[in-house]
């Protein structure tokens, strides 16, 4: 056994727990998870059946943690996991899974498949079996501070632009404010409108907020690659900054897995509860709306729909809030078939967008979204995840569709009541 394989198996053994043992005990190979997975539905290739992606993890569970499996291993009926096995499973555990969790929702015995995939990636990453693209993103996040290599000066430059455009200041490292606003590098690089929207909305709402020059990047390649150690490092920066600035709330940007990393995994990664709360920007905006602090005027007249980011909705529990906000500014808001917690993933989450090996299959997977949109015949698409937004734009380009994609926060900012 090679040292890396050993490390991988050790990671599987560390992360196997009672829920996973129960899940594997319950699976009857009914195949329903395949019908819920866009990588299967759009390719028709049975190897993309979600439960099959977990075969290496299942084998370690059976062979290490069940008496029956130990017996099978003793009499030579069980095949121990090999380096080759793990290598063969890279395309299944990374390229063709966005951790969207749709399979978990349909499993009749209640198996949380995506919970298991997340754990399986621990062993994959520890054994050196993560795709190069994701490895690179993780490395850049740790070494440079952002998966796309964005550094503080870039953000500062963008802040300057925003200040110039709005006439409002962009606060950095302000202690004792209510909100610490996090960014995703995608927003810094591709969607500068986001920061501008934040500035204007908080100004109108009269809320104090700040950016941190020590931790502005919320995305977490450690979660995507499935390494708790790396994810912990990345989260810790934000925790340190938030605690240093004594903020009440850290706001996750319009990015799905950044929200998961902060909101649900963060405290577990650092092994202690946070001293601040974590909210997604959409949650914050809906709270402001409720409190009457988000005053808008005018409505979008176009027929618009909302693409649910998986980590925000199904895996995050922020389901009604984006709809409240949509209804605030869009007069012709329509739901997609399978909306809300049963949404279909854009096809590029969970590290897929950072993984060049998955470029082809992620475009195939996008076909699902394309069909949904064609069925709906909308004039525009709104979402609340920069990663989804990139995939949606690239996908539509690939399939030659002409449909504008908006970020929900920006759309709201556009309808803010103008200062007198």
């Amino acid at each position, binding site marked *: 056994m090679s040292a890396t394989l050993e490390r991988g198996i050790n990671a599987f053994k560390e992360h*196997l727990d009672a829920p996973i043992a129960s899940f594997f005990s319950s699976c009857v190979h009914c195949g329903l998870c395949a019908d819920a997975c866009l990588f299967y539905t759009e390719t028709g290739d049975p190897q993309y059946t979600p439960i099959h992606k977990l075969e290496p993890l299942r084998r370690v569970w059976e062979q290490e943690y069940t008496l029956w499996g130990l017996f099978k291993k003793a009499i030579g009926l069980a095949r121990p996991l090999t*380096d080759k096995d793990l290598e063969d499973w890279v395309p299944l555990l990374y390229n063709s899974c966005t951790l969207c969790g749709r399979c978990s929702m349909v499993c009749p015995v209640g198996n949380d498949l995506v919970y298991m995939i997340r754990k399986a990636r621990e062993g994959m990453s*520890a054994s*050196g*079996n993560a795709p190069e693209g994701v*490895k690179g993103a*993780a490395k850049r996040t740790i070494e440079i501070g952002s998966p796309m290599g964005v550094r503080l000066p870039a953000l500062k430059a963008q802040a300057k632009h925003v200040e110039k455009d709005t006439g409002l200041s962009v606060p950095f490292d302000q202690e004792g404010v209510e909100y610490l606003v996090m960014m995703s590098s995608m927003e810094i690089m591709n969607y500068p409108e986001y920061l501008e929207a934040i500035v204007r909305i908080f100004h109108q709402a009269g809320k104090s907020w700040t950016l941190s020059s020590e931790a502005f990047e919320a995305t977490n390649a450690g979660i995507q690659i499935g*390494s708790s150690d790396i994810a912990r490092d990345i989260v810790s920066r934000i925790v340190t900054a938030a605690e240093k600035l004594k903020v009440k709330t850290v706001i996750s940007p319009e990015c799905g897995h950044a929200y998961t990393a902060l909101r649900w995994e963060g405290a577990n990664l650092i092994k202690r509860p946070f001293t601040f709360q974590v909210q997604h920007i959409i949650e914050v905006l809906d709270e402001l709306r409720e409190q009457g602090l988000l005053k808008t005027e005018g409505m979008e007249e176009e027929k618009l729909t909302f693409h649910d980011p998986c980590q925000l909705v199904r895996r995050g529990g922020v389901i009604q809030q984006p709809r409240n906000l949509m209804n605030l500014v869009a007069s012709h808001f329509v739901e997609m078939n399978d909306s809300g917690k049963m949404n279909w993933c854009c096809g590029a989450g969970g590290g897929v967008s950072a993984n060049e090996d998955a470029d082809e299959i992620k475009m195939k997977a996008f076909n699902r979204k394309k069909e949904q949109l064609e069925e709906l015949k909308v004039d525009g698409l709104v979402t609340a995840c920069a990663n989804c937004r990139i995939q949606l734009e690239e996908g539509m380009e690939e399939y030659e569709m002409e449909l504008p994609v908006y970020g929900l926060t920006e759309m709201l900012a556009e309808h803010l009541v103008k200062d007198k």
Partner: protein
Amino acid sequence: MSTRKPSSSPAPGSVGEYLRAQGISRRGFLKFCTATASMMALSPAFVPRLVEALEKAPRPSVIWLSFQECTGCTESLTRSHAPTVEGLIFDAISLDYHHTLQAASGEAAELAREEAMKENWGKYVLVVDGSIPLGNPGFSTIAGISNVDMLMDTAKGAAAIVSVGTCAAYGGLPQADPNPTGAVSVQDLIKDKPIINVPGCPPIPVVITGVLAHFLAFGLPELDELNRPKVFYGQNIHDRCYRRPFYERGQFAETFDDEGAKKGWCLYKLGCKGPTTYNACATTKWNQGASFPIESGHGCLGCSEPRFWDGGSFYKALSVPTGDLGQTAGYALAAGGAVGIAAGLLARQKKAQAVKDHETVTVNDLHKGEHS
């Protein structure tokens, strides 16, 4: 209407001749055959064939041996014996030895047996009731001859053997657990003769005579895998039971004195073994067709089936296991708990070890073969 001619006279020494000699009219003979056919569970359409066969059938010599038994079988038979119609069958045979019924005893009786055997060697019918003790031959002897010796000796010249009653057929009560006498059945000992089993504790009398009548008229009846004549044992009690519709409807007596019992509902839950018991009780019935156990409100015990004494309580439903699960379950759960906890703790320990062995993964460790 066609001209009718008297049939030719019956063969000399035949059953027909015997009956005629008894002054029985042709009408009487026809009635006898009709009743016999019914007794043999034959369709009335078979009556003419039976008439013909019985007229010609020779009267066989019968030797009846009783071993470890309670005389219930003989009682059952003689209860319905002459001068009834079915009793005639019994009269039509030449019962040359039956130590319970015959006047002679001791050596004279045994002499009669030996003579009958010699005279009819290879042709006589051997009827046996009772099981044979092998534990110690002295457990049961007749005139100083052990049961097993007498059986083996008498069987040699028999044309066929009829094992009457569950003891002779399967071992019966003497063989029930723990079988102190080492009782065995006739068919356990004799393998080279045709054996007809007429089980029952006791067998229905008309079934005994029916089997004899069949043997007289048509020779060996068709037998099932347990050597029982299919005509009598072809269907189980449950299938022919008049209470079957209640079973189908799910109406069951829960106790012997509840409303269901009073309404005559199915006795399955009270342990009726009708579904696994093959006998003619449900149609032939007992006491001249008066009733049978189920009709009297008690479930079938399955008395005509092998080892019916050892099948658990007579009052346990057929689907219920015969043993007492309580203790087994207790041991099993204790063992499962102990092994489960051991296995679980082993797994926990392995997991703890894995956590201890964990080497922090850094971005520089994400490649194969590389190790920080």
